[in-house]
């Protein structure tokens, strides 16, 4: 059934984890569709992943140039009408720059790039990308970033927490100094999720710390099916 679900993965110049995101979609049972930054055509996909990497070299500010890519016009437009969008790492940065999500990602507190297997607490399971998890579930997925420190003003943070929009928090170690240990957030509607760690690298036990990341991809397939039934 889920084989018919077409999930787009955008390639920007400098995207690195696009093939990995596509592999994760396929392992979860969806059909990955390659989307090109320079076209605004979403090719009828039912959800979009903005993958990790260093789009445009991240030379200006992470995600600051990508938000102006033609494909982002369509992504932003459709996201406002409910298209599920997951931004991972650089994708999260692009979502913030696009104002689909509040806050910003800044340089790690350690000032070093960090790559580690990260323990996370899943807090919100109402989003399109988290519904396959249990609230309070603990998972381990790789984290790798140089600018992953999530910041927002206190009012925004209070609002995110008050409305259950923090989807995941760092456990044990806060690897980048993110405020209130925030690893991922969603928009009000729950269709747009930004996540600093990389669930697409935890979909095969052979190549990752486990398969805990698969849930993000099965979640969206599940929520699309639920929607189709409605």
């Amino acid at each position, binding site marked *: 059934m889920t084989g018919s679900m077409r999930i787009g993965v955008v390639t920007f110049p400098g995207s690195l984890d696009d093939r990995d995101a596509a592999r994760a979609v396929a392992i979860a049972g969806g059909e990955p569709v390659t989307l090109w930054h320079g076209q605004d055509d979403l090719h009828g996909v039912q959800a979009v992943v903005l993958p990790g990497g260093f789009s445009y070299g*991240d030379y200006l500010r992470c995600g600051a140039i990508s938000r102006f890519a033609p494909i982002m016009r369509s992504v932003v437009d459709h996201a406002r009408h409910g298209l599920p969008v997951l931004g991972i790492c650089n994708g999260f940065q692009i979502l913030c720059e696009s104002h689909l999500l509040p806050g910003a990602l800044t340089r790690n507190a350690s000032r070093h*790039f960090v790559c580690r297997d990260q323990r996370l607490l899943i807090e919100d399971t109402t989003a399109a990308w988290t519904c396959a998890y249990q609230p309070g579930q603990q998972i381990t997925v790789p984290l790798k970033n*140089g600018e992953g420190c999530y910041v927002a003003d206190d009012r925004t943070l209070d609002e995110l927490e008050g409305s259950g929009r923090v989807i995941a928090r760092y456990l044990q170690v806060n690897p980048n100094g993110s405020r209130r240990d925030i690893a991922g957030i969603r928009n009000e509607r729950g269709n747009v999720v930004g996540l600093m760690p990389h669930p697409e690298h935890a979909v095969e036990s052979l190549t990752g710390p486990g398969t805990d990341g698969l849930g993000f991809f099965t979640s969206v397939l599940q929520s699309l099916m639920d929607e189709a039934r409605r």
Partner: protein
Amino acid sequence: MSPDRGAADGAVTDTVARAEREPDALQPYAELGLKPDEYQRIRDILGRRPTSAELAMYSVMWSEHCSYKSSKVHLRQFGEKCPPSPALMVGIGENAGVVDIGDGWAVTFKIESHNHPSYVEPYQGAATGVGGIVRDIMSMGARPIAVVDALRFGPLDAPDTRRVLPGVVAGIGGYGNCLGLPNIGGEVAFDPSYLGNPLVNALCVGSMRHQDIHRASASGVGNLVVLYGARTGGDGIGGVSVLASESFTEGGPVKRPSVQVGDPFMEKLLIEATLAVLQAGLVEGIQDLGGAGISCATSELASNGEGGMHVWLDRVPLRDPSLAPEEILMSESQERMCAIVRPANLPAFLDHCARWDVEATVIGEVNDSGRLTVDWHGMRIVDVPPRSVAHDGPVYQRPYQRPPWQDDLQADVADRLPRPATGEQLRSTLLDLVGSANLASTEWVTNQYDRYVQGNTVLARPQVAGMVRVDEGTGRGVAVSVACNGRFAGLDPYGGAQLALAESYRKVSVTGAAPLAVTNCLNFGSPEDPAIMWQFAEAVRGLADGCLTLGIPVTGGNVSFYNQTSTTAILPTPVVGVLGVIEDVHRRVTCDWGDADALIYLLGTTHDEFGGSQWAHHVHGHLGGLPPRCDLEVEQRLGRVLVCAASADLLIAAHDTCGGGLAQALVQMAVGSGTGARCQVPPGLDPFVYLFSESASRAIVVPRPSTEAVFLDLCQAAGLPTTRIGEVSPNAPVLSFDGLFEVGLDELAQVRQATLPAILDDSPGQQWASR
């Protein structure tokens, strides 16, 4: 440069006609690093004085770095003693060697140094080192799939190490992470001899289908020479002949500003554009631009192809329009490639480049003139036989002689050093070594590298070797390791080089991959010193003999000379990379023994061998005697048993033993697994020797209990000694040695982890989460 050099501001251009007209003009050949006889040879080849552009080309291409003029006569042994290998598809001489790994897959790999630039400017030096080796791999037609690196620094607590190391690590990470290349292994070591000459050796692995292998040759008269990638700027001009070929001497001329600056984003685009044009079949020949830039690429392409090429140098897109033609020819601006393209394919080629925002320009044409000619705004500034530039550089028979002090060094054996005897002394020796710079956890370094990108990393640090999946369908993959103990090579260059080969071979075998091919990065002092040249000659001979015995060919590598400050050279450091193949990566063996209720065995024999050991170095500051014996025939049997056992799924875990001996390997397995072990010293053996000797050809294994007998039979059939040394203790987080001492895993982990951060952390580091 010569005072009559041409420049874009209208200065006189030194043309071929002018060179004929003014044959006696004085030329600054010596400043460009050419010896009087080399300059005369250029005049003989051309039948006139060279133009300043020609002089620039010859000077960079005949530098030690590009021409291997001091090492060539020795490196020939890698070809002469090359063992018969059905896997070898492209051998030494191309940008990188290629081996067949089965199922129509080919793998290319090579290691290269970027030592001097990394000392001058650690971040950019190391970053562009990664960039350069990645382009070597791309130019064979392969997609880069992994990098590993071998790093050497001065003492960890030396102030300059705190300047150099963080910059090098950030540079490797900053460049490699941005390219999307997993960094899957490598090694970091510290020794006072590297204080003024750190070593940064980067190895890259690439994979391709057999039919996608490409070469650096300009074939087909009328085909176009396309330069694509970054624009050419003033960076790295003369970097090859000046930086890589002269050691740092006090009071000498200051020639250090020419380190290149890397742009990994451009390199990532270059990778994608290159793979696209290769896959579309639009490329007849391809060459990367590294050392010696356009000079090197055009002369090598022409020399390997139809033999002739014409270049319109003024068409080269410039970052700095004031560059003189000589500077354009010598520039080492990064992220550039050169392709030979049929005219009919040019529009498609340009389309692919445009899609990836990569600038591409036709700068020349292949012909059969037998000459490489270069024009600058209609003026002929170069007219040379390309082979004379690219391949017919000078070859030196440098004198070499075993230095008189070598005997004294070898006579100063480690046997006289006081040894720990009691359990308490052994325990504190173990903790002391576990926390020593050369044996402590390198997580501070490796956690700055992305090991996950591409989603095919099966093993990475702290595993014994790196492993990546090549074919997602079949699970076919490759493992790679680099190793060298420069202290062993200092005591005995021949044996030390073989020990480096043996260690790398063993590390690959331990994971279950069958060793297939070798690459090496030979880091030495000045070849003009007969003692250093002797070290080099011996190390090459040792490696060539070793590869013949093990049956794995050397497919390529790199020589880095002049690693010395004044008269003090680095330890001879022949870093050896071994690549192995595994049919199904699901069968790989990790060093994690889990929480199995299983027995631990030592394969191989332990001798009393402490010359060059970490114990002698760290505890006594001693370097003397002979390194451990190296019997490659035993090493081969050990390797075959390990590979065979892995493919039959007989092992839970395995680890090689090298620096720090058996004890260090057990610590790494226990701490890595989070599970302790209870061990015994076999009766009749000296506990100190048993725990800390660095005898070669040994490994620790944990066989699956259900098939343990099968495994032991396999060892017996191979004539491999096995000793039961203990058992995994699932319920006790303690490493114990009966009757001697025990130490908790928490303490071991803490000691292992603390060393590098204590010295290198310049900021708060990681914070604790609130939960």
